[in-house]
């Protein structure tokens, strides 16, 4: 095992994960006000109406697919009676459909960002970096899947990438597994870590405010006035006592 392998497949993942977690905590504490989707629908709706649902639903399926392929060990699906060939056929078809949806949606959205004046001028440098990382990761992932299947022997990532990924979380990393994976997978994974490290500082944080609580909460929210009047917190010693 070379130092480079350790760096790429052990050190980098841990660093990225640490940045991801600490970054989110820090951002949430420092910048709740900036925690938003920053929607640009007000400026333009025709393209967004098409691109945004396509992208978002696509990427939700992609996430589900990754949970199925990466987090669930091969032995479990086999125990459930799903043979490798069945799994593979399913994963590739669904994966390509979801990936294509995502990519098409992203393409529409990027085109929209670039061509619609108001949307373009509302795009920050931060957004651009995020787009590069996000679209890059998607393209690498989808490309690897498609190219791998065009050749006759698609790589079984559930023997390499998936166990390596899980091993990181048991704190017994197995970089040698990842080192065996084809270059496409390696690049996809590297780009994904970079995206994860950038995540808390981008508008992608809105993923973590997916409002699932809406389904169960009462329609009207009542809240008491803040303990202090106005917008300033009371001075020390002047807080309300009752």
């Amino acid at each position, binding site marked *: 095992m070379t130092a480079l392998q350790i760096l790429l497949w052990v050190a980098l993942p841990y660093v990225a994960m640490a940045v991801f977690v600490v970054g989110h905590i820090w951002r949430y504490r420092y910048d709740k006000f*900036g925690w938003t989707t920053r929607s640009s629908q007000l400026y333009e709706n025709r393209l967004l109406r098409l691109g945004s649902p396509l992208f978002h639903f696509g990427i939700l399926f992609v996430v589900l697919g990754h949970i199925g392929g990466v987090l669930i060990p091969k032995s479990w699906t086999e125990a459930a009676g799903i043979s490798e060939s069945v799994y593979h056929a399913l994963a590739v078809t669904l994966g390509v459909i979801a990936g294509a949806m995502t990519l098409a949606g992203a393409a529409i959205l990027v085109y929209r960002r670039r061509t619609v004046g108001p949307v373009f*001028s509302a795009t920050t440098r931060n957004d651009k970096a995020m787009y590069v990382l996000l679209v890059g990761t998607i393209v690498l992932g989808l490309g690897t899947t498609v190219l791998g299947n065009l050749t006759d022997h698609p790589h079984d990532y559930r023997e390499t990438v998936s166990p390596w990924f899980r091993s990181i979380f048991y704190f017994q990393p197995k970089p040698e597994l990842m080192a065996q994976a084809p270059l496409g997978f390696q690049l996809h994974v590297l780009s994904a870590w970079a995206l994860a490290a950038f995540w808390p500082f981008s508008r992608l944080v*809105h993923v973590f405010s997916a409002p699932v609580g*809406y389904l169960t909460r009462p329609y*009207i929210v009542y809240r008491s006035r803040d303990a202090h*009047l*106005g917008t300033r917190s009371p001075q020390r010693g002047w807080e309300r006592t009752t």
Partner: protein
Amino acid sequence: MRVMAQMAMVMNLDKCIGCHTCSVTCKQTWTNRSGVEYVWFNNVETRPGQGYPRTYEDQERWLGGWTRTRRGRLTLRSGGRLRKLLTIFSNPKLPSIQDYYEPWTYDYDILTTAPLQEHTPVARPRSLITGEHTKIEWSANWDDNLAGAPELATRDPLIKGIEDKVRFEFEQTFMFYLPRICEHCLNPSCAASCPSGAIYKRTEDGIVLVDQDRCRGWRMCVSGCPYKKVYFNHRTGKAEKCTFCFPRVEVGLPTVCAETCVGRLRYIGLVLYDADKVLAAASVAEEHDLLEAQRQVFLDPQDPDVVRAAEQTGIPRDWIEAAQRSPIHALINTYRVALPLHPEYRTMPMVWYIPPLSPVVDVIRDTGHDAEDHGNLFAAIDALRIPVEYLARLFTAGDPEPVNSVLRKLAAMRSYMRDINLGREPREEIAAGAGMTGEQVYDMYRLLALAKYEDRYVIPPAHAEQAHGLEELATECSLDYDGGPGMGGSGPFGESSGGVSPIAVENFRMLRDRQSSDTMAAPDEKAHRVNLLNWDGKGRPEGLFPPRRQP
């Protein structure tokens, strides 16, 4: 019975002169920032007209507010919770910036930097959205005073079906102004539409607010509000709405729009209501019954049972007393002249209106008859279908009866008071014609025509002891708050990030003292810091300039 208090407003439309002072002062106070250039928490529309944003009242198109299902339950018109979440990536009913208008500025610097030339330099308009030169085609008041009427005003959603009867020829049409703020509804559909639960109704005074730290920019409130009174800040990506000037109201001052209203037509006060009855009242089957159902939700603050129940739920004594003196309660339930705006949206709006008699008066005067004679007025109210029908579509879900009754009261007041002003014997039968007694008419007249500042605005301060504390402490630096100083700056993630600017920079009670004091000099009480944000130009308060250097 679960008693709750609500801060509410009534506007007397007969007195509105359409000067837009309220809109401008509100804008200066709350929305003179980038990202909210197109946002008017308070706007004044000419009716008939399309309103702001254009045709917002056409709920078949915008799907705002609530509807009643066949089984008698209320649902959001634009669909239930699951549907909201599924359309979250692209809200199908969000108005576009063109439905409001594209805000603009002018190339002012051209005026001073242009080289010497034959023609006067011209400051061309520039869009604040794209930054490009633009052609101004619409604004918040493009159709003010029926401008462009035959073409534009006919698109008013309320005249659907009576287009042929509403004439837009000069001298044949009618017109009035409708100032609008957020209704601070008892059953707010904006709050119900918010996936993050960021919009809340304050338990103490019922003011509906957006928690800026919780809003995630899902935009569902914008389409959920049938009055389109939640706006999307396109720079920060957060929803913003009228706040009922809560920092002012908390210290007992009226909202900015009310304070500056030229016609003095706004009333602010408390109403007590039964929170347990709200849902049932909002879901009555017949739209025409909604008005009465809403009136029934209010409680009589004089009733000892109500007072006891209010005290039990922790409403402070001075609040109950304020509710007893409330002009709102008097106008809605005692004189029954105030009506809600579009009760059929079923959000239970809490800004009510006294419909204008002027369209009727104008017609009589134009035909050369005595427009102050009660006989003429009563007859005209009955005969003039169109203004009444139009007002009914605005205020009573189309039921002309309550509008008729209010207009008759206003007409009776007009004639009855003329007799008194001319020194003639007041005629009880005029009052009786509107179902009132002469004394009631006189009291109503006092409230509508003479009411002083203290009678129009009966606002109990939030917590007297705390408000006083604020006053004493106003000597601190106003940037001295959590995470400050954040004014005007922006954090590392662009415009939206970083700390929030404080909205109440100074304490307002001091301002009131200054406004009502006769002296031009600075009040010489406790030392206080000068704050230019609320310095009213009077005198030269200490601390405004650095101390003179001693020679």
